[in-house]
């Protein structure tokens, strides 16, 4: 029974793979093909067109995947230490380390070139980018090397990759993953304080709309009008509306 369902679903996966190549991509802010997985602010792998970029703790590892049957590793780009996350935006890779945000230009996808870096307080730091603003959370924690016990959301103007600057810093409790979407909203997982919903119509002045305090929020992903939240006890899915999130389902997490 299980085997039959699994077989059918896997067949669907491959059928969908073919079908979806005809469907228009909806990842407007991601310079990626519509037939590619899309991760959140905590990702350490990302695919941009025909290249896979992975980060280890010190470097970018670019791999040419234009021939999926024969991936070709390219020259590794050394950045520094404490590298954690990678987020693609336009022709750029935004790379979060535990002390800085690095921006690499990938106009030549085989050779990422650093345009700038934005030094910030030391801590774990997922990043997302929307409309020329980067949103970075910095939190303390066991593995975060954060000596200052700093927990903030930083908003950085990145319109000119050679001249980035901080426009706003908002103190939070213990922020982790974050995502933009759902009609100009920014969602920030603030650990025990829950999921925070900011209106970012004016990115330089985010307004905290709603706090969903019933969740211990770790990571959030938005695809179209679907918001997926990893909480402490389940993976919750919501439909975005103009006002608030409508809970659709919960896949429980075993404790």
């Amino acid at each position, binding site marked *: 029974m299980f085997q039959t369902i699994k077989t059918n679903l896997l067949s669907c*996966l491959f059928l969908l793979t073919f079908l979806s190549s005809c469907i228009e991509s909806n990842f407007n802010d991601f310079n990626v093909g519509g037939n590619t997985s899309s991760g959140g602010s905590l990702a350490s792998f990302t695919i941009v067109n025909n290249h896979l970029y992975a980060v280890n703790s010190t470097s970018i590892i670019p791999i040419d995947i234009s021939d999926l049957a024969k991936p070709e590793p390219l020259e590794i780009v050394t950045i520094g230490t404490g590298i954690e996350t990678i987020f693609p935006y336009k022709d750029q890779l935004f790379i979060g380390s535990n002390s800085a945000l690095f921006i690499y230009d990938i106009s030549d996808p085989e050779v990422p070139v650093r345009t700038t870096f934005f030094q910030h307080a030391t801590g774990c730091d997922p990043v997302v980018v929307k409309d020329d603003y980067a949103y970075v959370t910095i939190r303390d924690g066991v593995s975060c090397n954060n000596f200052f016990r700093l927990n903030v959301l930083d908003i950085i103007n990145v319109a000119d990759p050679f001249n980035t600057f901080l426009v706003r810093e908002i103190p939070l409790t213990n922020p982790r993953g974050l995502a933009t979407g759902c009609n100009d909203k920014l969602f920030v997982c603030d650990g025990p304080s829950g999921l925070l919903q900011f209106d970012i119509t004016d990115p330089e002045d985010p307004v905290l709309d709603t706090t969903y305090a019933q969740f211990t929020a770790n990571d959030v992903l938005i695809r179209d009008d679907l918001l997926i939240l990893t909480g402490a006890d389940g993976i919750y899915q919501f439909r975005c509306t103009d006002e608030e999130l409508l809970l659709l389902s919960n896949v429980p997490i075993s404790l």
Partner: protein
Amino acid sequence: MILNRIIILIFCSSFLLSCVEDDGSRASRPSGSVNGMSPIYQSEEIAYQISVSEAKDIVNPGKIFTYQNFLIVTIINEGFHLIDNTNPSNPNNMLFVNIPGNTDIAVKDGVFFANNYNDMISFKLESNGGISLIERLSDAMQNGLAPPGNNIYFECVDPSRGVVVGWESRILNRPRCFKQ
């Protein structure tokens, strides 16, 4: 007299040279026991065993991402759950892909890219529930030959002993390897 001095000089030089050779790495080799890291090995049969198993409960999830109508939930060092999310009101936990030492994945056109410890592997899920490995890029993640961190003495990796799956603290006697 002069001959003696030359002999002593040659003797000293050869001694110095042998010391340099012994160092073998950028830092000077310690003369006694020091704190350091030692690799934990596993056989290739176990470390490189990629497989699909039935859906199971989600425990300690890592990252989440979407691919087509699927939701993928990674479990650090173990692999990922594949959830059919065609109907987000009723997601269906389909199966689990076991990838030892995995920390992240990405997917393009049905091809999965994942790290298996320090290798990057690419594979497809077959409709019969199996896995077909496409490529294994050895040590593509570049983490394999030294422990994480800086200014650490460590026992040099001996690939003949298997795959390095982790590191443990040890007292090392005159270790040859050092990471700056």
